[in-house]
């Protein structure tokens, strides 16, 4: 490949290398800048920070002054947890139903189960608000769970479907031929083999729920505040440096989760293959 480097090839390598470098810088720099900013000593959001301190983390963990943030964070964790659990169970069942059926109706069902990934969830958020209000149901965390559930289920559905497609049918045939019941085969063969796929999907679903704005924007209220909406409020009013501290906490949490998930499910391989 590299034995004859014409000027055109050199210019290609330079261009590609330069743009790829810029792309990596654009991807990484904002995250690093936020983390650095969170350790600032001043009220102003300055980069580089004039001095380093844990002042804003202290403010963030102050149980009195940051109580609304803590409530919002706990609400978000609660909703994300339940939406992920329920969404995962439903999605795994649906994926099992669809993989081995090649009828066009199954493909149509697959497409509709995946549709919340590309349809504007903001339109859905307003639709859900109108739906619940027409039915006369008052906003609650349960409504948020229902709303998030629909939007995040496709993540689990997709990864589970991918694991099931890679599953060798010969294994199940062998199990059946050896006299195993269908449920026993599922429990001892299918489930262990697709668990990493389910876990990777559930991880992405949980993050998507924690991060969800379009649905929470319409379904959350002052009493059922959610973390991203609370942070948006903090950004709109005064540029509170505590947001940077929240960012620091979330980024570290995500990093730890990512490393754990990568060990357990091969997340990074799963996404690229």
């Amino acid at each position, binding site marked *: 490949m590299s034995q004859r480097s014409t000027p055109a090839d050199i210019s290609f390598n330079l261009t590609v290398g330069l743009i*790829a470098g810029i792309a990596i810088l654009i991807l990484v720099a904002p995250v690093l800048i936020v983390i650095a900013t969170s350790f600032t000593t001043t009220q102003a959001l300055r980069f580089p920070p004039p001095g380093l301190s844990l002042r804003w983390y202290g403010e963030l963990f102050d149980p009195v002054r940051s109580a609304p943030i803590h409530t919002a964070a706990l609400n978000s964790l609660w909703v994300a947890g339940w939406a992920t659990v329920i969404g995962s169970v439903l999605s795994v069942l649906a994926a099992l139903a669809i993989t081995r059926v090649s009828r066009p109706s199954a493909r149509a069902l697959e497409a509709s189960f995946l549709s919340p990934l590309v349809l504007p969830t903001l339109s859905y958020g307003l639709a859900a*608000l109108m739906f619940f209000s027409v039915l006369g149901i008052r906003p609650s965390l349960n409504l948020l769970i229902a709303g998030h559930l629909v939007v995040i*289920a496709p993540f689990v559905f997709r990864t589970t479907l991918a694991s099931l497609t890679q599953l060798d049918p010969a294994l199940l*045939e062998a199990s059946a031929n050896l006299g195993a019941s269908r449920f026993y085969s599922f429990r001892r063969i299918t489930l262990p083999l697709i668990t990493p796929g389910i876990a990777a999907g559930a991880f992405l679903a949980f993050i998507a729920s924690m991060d969800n704005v*379009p649905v929470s924007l319409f379904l959350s209220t002052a009493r059922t505040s959610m973390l991203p909406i609370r*942070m948006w409020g903090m950004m709109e009013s005064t540029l509170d440096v505590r947001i940077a501290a929240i960012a620091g906490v979330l980024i570290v949490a995500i990093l730890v989760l990512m490393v754990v998930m990568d060990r357990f499910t091969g997340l990074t391989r799963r996404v690229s293959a």
Partner: protein
Amino acid sequence: MSAAAPGAAPVRDAVEWRLAAPLGLTYVVFFAAPFLILLGISFYADAEQTRLGFDSWVKFYTDAFYLKVIFDTLKLGVFAVVATTILAYPLALVFRASSPRMQRVLIFIILMPLLTSVVIRTFAWIVILAREGVINQTLMGLGLTATPLNLLQTELGLVLALTQIEMPLMLLPLLAIMNQLDQNLIDASRALGASKWRTFFRVILPLTLPGWIAGATLVFASATTAFISQSVIGGARLVYLPALIWQQSMVVYNWPFAAVASLTLLFTVLSGIMALSWLGRFARTT
């Protein structure tokens, strides 16, 4: 499955088929039904929802201001797709040429922003684009400008921020397809005397187009609906459909009008997706 017991296959299908019912039912109740209600409410003529009529639709589609909002939203989506494409392709090429170890590091770098809250990524761009922000400090430090540039509340600043926020969505499908690309085809092109540029545009680009279309669809859908980024970085002067929907439904309380705006956003995104998949089919046949 069915080869093992051909006679039992239809029964098994029926049993397995039913496993899709819980999720299907959940979607019908919590996803399809709300959209029907949304559609229904859009046919109320007044904000108080007392009279039926097409007034909300007519008002939206005859007002130059709202038509411009639709156009600006589409434009923002297209800009985000173009910007992420320009940055993602070279990075995907570097990814392809990297060792497996380096590839894992790159995936990590790409996933990191994707898994960081959109609100936080938006916040980061405020720190970067502000008058005393990183870009202005750098430019003034280098003596390129005497006064700080206004980057917040401009379309340029918003596109820049959205590029970072949406780039992982473009990269992931692109990297997947780039890794499956047959090296022999590239080697053949090179052996036949094509330059790297020519090989990229005539071999790599057409063959990775399905991955690009998948990524572009996600970026377009995401950029056009990125309410927080649009409203915080774009500010009040730049109005896009999501802000209009929010304002009409939660501030003005004109639900029929908000429903029209919401369905318009849905159509806008769907038309973008359809245009992209049409492009994919068109590219395959030529």
